[in-house]
């Protein structure tokens, strides 16, 4: 056997050991099974572009249009901070589309002074809930495309498809690189991510203000739409829970955002049936489910508090994580390192807080992460983030 082959095999074996070690840590944390140390999770998205040392310094727009450049930025970030797992490998934004449709038509607008911000969607008319529910692709093509982008040529459509194919290639390449070269487990299989109907209305078609009114003016239509879409989510849940996912931390997951404008009764009607089905199935099959919850979760705690330990992991964004622990003692919690702290405190103060989190939560279902997606330049500082990470990686709690 030649030397390069031996070296390659040695490296693959090393990364296999690393990924197994990390999966073991996450599994112990999620199952309340006394992990050796607290696993760390990165919520870094476009902030890593601000953080890069690559010269000349790329803009957000340049990095989110150039996948070779983005790969370098992601590799640099992984090698600098060495998190155990990541929410994003530079795939949060595909800005190339702006070259075809214009930046003002994008949902995620890139502004190199401020970063990325979302435009309030406003393309769906009041009477169209059913059309979206019946055939989403054809609804997008016949209604949303002409309203939002106007006339497009065959050549422009082909360019949009080419940009999508490049983006898919990049995503697949990064999935392989992170597993095989860095020994990083994947959050979950891409087909295991559920999106309930109201999240589409809230985030893609109606926007916060219209959706808030819709729940009063069109309550019946939305409830019926949710009922129909839930059948698809039930099937997706069954399929996701049957997947063999050896490199994944979780078996199934979802993100909560629309719940932030709902009262409890609305949540129970429009959101809970699909989520309850998924959690019940996950619990029965002894699988692990992740809820990436933005905004608040405490007022919804009654829905989750009776599930057995080891089933649910919930991220904590705006609330105090110790308060969440009191009302949800059965759920693994992700978060704790606040953006405020990373920006305004010294590295030593941040490490002291990280130690407190490890000591108080580490043996009771806890994954350390930043409390929100780091997007903007002032969402973190390198020295505080690195100090916390270096400390936690070397702090054994058992």
């Amino acid at each position, binding site marked *: 056997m030649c030397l390069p082959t031996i070296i390659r095999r040695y490296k693959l074996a090393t990364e296999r050991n690393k990924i197994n070690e990390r999966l073991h840590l996450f599994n112990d944390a999620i199952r309340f099974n006394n992990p050796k140390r607290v696993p760390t999770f990165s919520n870094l998205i476009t902030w890593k572009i601000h953080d890069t040392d690559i010269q000349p310094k790329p803009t957000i727009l340049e990095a989110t249009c150039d996948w070779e450049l983005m790969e370098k930025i992601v590799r640099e970030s992984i090698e600098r901070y060495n998190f155990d797992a990541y929410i994003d490998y530079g795939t949060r*934004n*595909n*800005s190339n*589309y702006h070259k075809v*449709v214009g930046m003002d038509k*994008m*949902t*995620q607008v890139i502004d190199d002074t401020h970063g990325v911000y979302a435009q309030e969607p406003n393309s769906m008319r009041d009477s169209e809930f059913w059309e979206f529910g019946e055939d*989403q*692709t*054809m609804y*997008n*093509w*016949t*209604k*949303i*495309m*002409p309203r*939002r*982008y106007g*006339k*497009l*040529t*065959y*050549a422009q*459509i*082909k360019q*949009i*498809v080419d*940009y*999508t*194919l490049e*983006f*898919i290639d990049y995503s697949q390449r990064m999935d392989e690189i992170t597993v095989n070269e860095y020994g990083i487990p994947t959050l979950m299989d891409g087909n295991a991510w559920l999106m309930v109907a109201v999240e589409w209305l809230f985030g*893609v078609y109606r926007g916060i203000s219209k959706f808030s009114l819709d729940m009063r003016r069109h309550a019946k239509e939305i409830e019926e739409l949710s009922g129909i879409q839930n059948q698809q989510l039930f099937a997706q849940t069954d399929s996701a829970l049957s997947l063999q996912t050896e490199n994944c931390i979780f078996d199934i997951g979802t993100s909560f955002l629309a719940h932030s404008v709902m009262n409890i009764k609305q949540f129970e009607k429009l959101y809970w049936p699909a989520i309850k089905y998924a959690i019940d199935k996950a619990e029965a099959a002894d699988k692990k489910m992740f809820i990436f919850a933005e905004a608040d979760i405490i007022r919804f705690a009654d829905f989750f508090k009776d599930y057995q330990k080891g089933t649910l992991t919930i991220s904590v964004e705006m609330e105090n994580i110790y308060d969440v622990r009191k009302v949800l003692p059965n759920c693994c919690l992700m978060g704790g390192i606040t953006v405020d702290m990373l920006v305004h405190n010294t590295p030593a103060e941040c490490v002291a807080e990280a130690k407190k989190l490890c000591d108080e939560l580490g043996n009771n279902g806890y994954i350390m992460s930043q409390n929100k997606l780091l997007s903007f330049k002032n969402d973190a500082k390198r020295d505080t983030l690195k100090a916390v990470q270096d400390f936690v990686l070397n702090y054994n709690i058992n």
Partner: protein
Amino acid sequence: MDNEYVEYTVEGFKKAAEALGISEDQKEMMLSISINSLIMA
């Protein structure tokens, strides 16, 4: 044809998919994924 405008109808979708230079069995799926990605991007 490249400079002609697509039609935003069911037939127009099929015609736009047909015009893509990718393998036959993936055309409609890739156009669907691309349009959905664009709308969310």
